[in-house]
């Protein structure tokens, strides 16, 4: 059966050019970059080239990039490192309620260590404002950590403006750019970012390798003690194939930036229009404009997400949801709840995330399969007719006149 992969925010397929670079590094470039002979020099050279490729994607200097074991590690390293270096006697950290768990759980851990954390609220679109950040700043604030773009709803935060606030008040700014890198034009100088996390597997690279950008002059203790690799911040013989792959993925993301974004944005809007046209009682989650070009997130009211995902999977389509069933807890997505969605609507969320490889035929296939699935599950739902019928119409398929029928 045909498979249509629409979960690129979860992870992406490796680009053949990345695979090739990685395989070559793995096979031929086996030297230890810390040694002095020819093989080591070749390895060292490749490592630094990869570092430069990562730096170029975000406007950083080569030596400001630390390779890590992925996005979660970069997030942990940033928060715990800054907390330890700048908050010896405790301190205050500002973050948002919609961060990835790699940030939220690290903040909760730091709270147990005596740090104070403010979790800023977001509006209905998932946005935190620079004004709110400013208002939350205290004399003991040591770090602001706000994600560049949200992994669930794709909302893009005003990082440049938040960066200006942070710079004015001389507070360090970290941003989780795991979903943004390669999708948004990022410049750590222009945006006043001091630390930034990214990961390879969201941009068609392999899992388990990422990077932390650490502005020159910002202090941090080592995450891993040992042989002093990665400027002492993360010891251990370097994962050269991983670094090379991340570097290549960053280079390709930068080179294809305009074309890929234009392609995905067109298909994203086509997909959204199609869903709204074919399915009544659908709510768009996230910001209508300030959103990632590859992200569609909607709540299909009166049904629950997991059932929808399982049925889509039976039809060959991979997607995700913020329903509790896919979140590992009693509550549905903390992001959707922070945006003010009620539980039932959050349970019915559906996230479809595109890649530069996604085709119009694939979107058409989804648009053919999704409406009957939604219809089938709604027919089975005890809350559908009871609530939907409140608009006074029994025939719901053509409910265009109903005020809640279209809530774009």
């Amino acid at each position, binding site marked *: 059966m045909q498979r249509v992969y629409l*979960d690129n*925010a*979860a*992870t992406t397929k490796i680009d053949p050019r990345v695979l090739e670079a990685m395989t070559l590094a793995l096979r031929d470039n086996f030297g230890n970059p810390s040694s002095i002979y020819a093989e080591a020099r070749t390895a060292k050279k490749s490592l630094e080239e990869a570092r430069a490729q990562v730096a170029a994607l975000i406007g950083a200097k080569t030596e400001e990039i630390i390779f890590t074991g992925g996005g979660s590690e970069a997030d942990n390293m940033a928060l715990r490192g800054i907390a330890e270096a700048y908050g010896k006697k405790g301190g205050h950290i500002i973050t948002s309620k919609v961060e*990835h*768990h790699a940030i939220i759980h690290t903040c909760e851990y730091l709270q147990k260590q005596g740090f104070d954390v403010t979790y800023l609220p977001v509006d209905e679109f998932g946005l935190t404002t620079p004004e709110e950040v400013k208002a939350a700043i205290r004399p003991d604030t040591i770090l602001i950590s706000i994600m560049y773009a949200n*992994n*669930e709803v794709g909302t893009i935060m005003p990082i440049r403006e938040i960066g200006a606030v942070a710079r004015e008040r001389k507070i360090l700014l970290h941003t989780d750019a795991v979903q943004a890198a390669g999708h948004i034009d990022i410049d750590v100088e222009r945006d006043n970012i001091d630390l930034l996390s990214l990961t390879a597997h969201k941009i068609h690279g392999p899992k388990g390798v990422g990077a932390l950008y650490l502005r020159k002059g910002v202090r941090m203790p080592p995450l891993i003690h040992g042989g002093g690799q990665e400027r002492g911040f993360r010891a251990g013989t370097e994962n050269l194939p991983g670094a090379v792959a991340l570097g290549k993925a960053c280079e390709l993301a930068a080179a294809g930036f305009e074309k890929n974004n234009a392609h995905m944005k067109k298909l994203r809007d086509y997909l959204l229009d199609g869903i709204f046209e074919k399915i009544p009682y659908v709510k768009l989650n996230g910001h209508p404009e300030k959103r990632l070009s590859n992200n569609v997130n909607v709540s299909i009211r*009166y*049904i*629950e997400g*997991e*059932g929808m995902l*399982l049925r889509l999977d*039976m039809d060959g389509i991979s997607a*995700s949801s*913020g*329903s*509790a*069933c*896919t*979140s*590992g807890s*009693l509550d*549905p*997505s903390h992001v959707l709840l922070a945006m003010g969605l*009620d*539980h*039932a609507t959050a*349970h019915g969320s559906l996230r479809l995330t595109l890649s530069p490889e996604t085709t119009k035929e694939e979107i058409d296939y989804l648009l053919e399969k999704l409406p009957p699935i939604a219809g089938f599950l709604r*027919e*089975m*739902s*005890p*809350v559908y007719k009871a609530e939907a019928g409140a608009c006074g119409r029994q025939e719901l398929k053509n409910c265009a006149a109903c005020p809640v029928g279209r809530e774009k």
Partner: protein
Amino acid sequence: MDHFANPRNVGEIADADGVGEVGNPVCGDIMKFFIKVDNGIITDIKFKTFGCGAAIATSSIATELARGKSIAEAQKLTNKAVAEALDGLPPVKMHCSNLAADALKAAIIDYKKRRGLDYSDIRMDDDECGGCESACTGHRH
């Protein structure tokens, strides 16, 4: 899961003799069961469920198990019997079977209430958020 792919007995019974609903949207599952009773026998049964895949499958199997049974037998239906009949409910989804058994019992209680019969012998498994979604596992990206 066949009962998820092709759930049996989906729908409502307009002139049901008993209707029971358990769960709530905050928890993520709502199950509503409708029964038709003739001479103490469940002659027809239908359900509507808002919930995850396992909630749908357990609803379906519970209706199959109860159909044709006497009220006395049906009210003894345990979550274990529901799970066994599905043969292969993942451990984390065991709670879903509680909810399905409860929905059936709620419909029987309603039937007994309407008839003025004693229903104090019916035990519900759990009626708070302890249903299906609470036991779900997964991850966020």
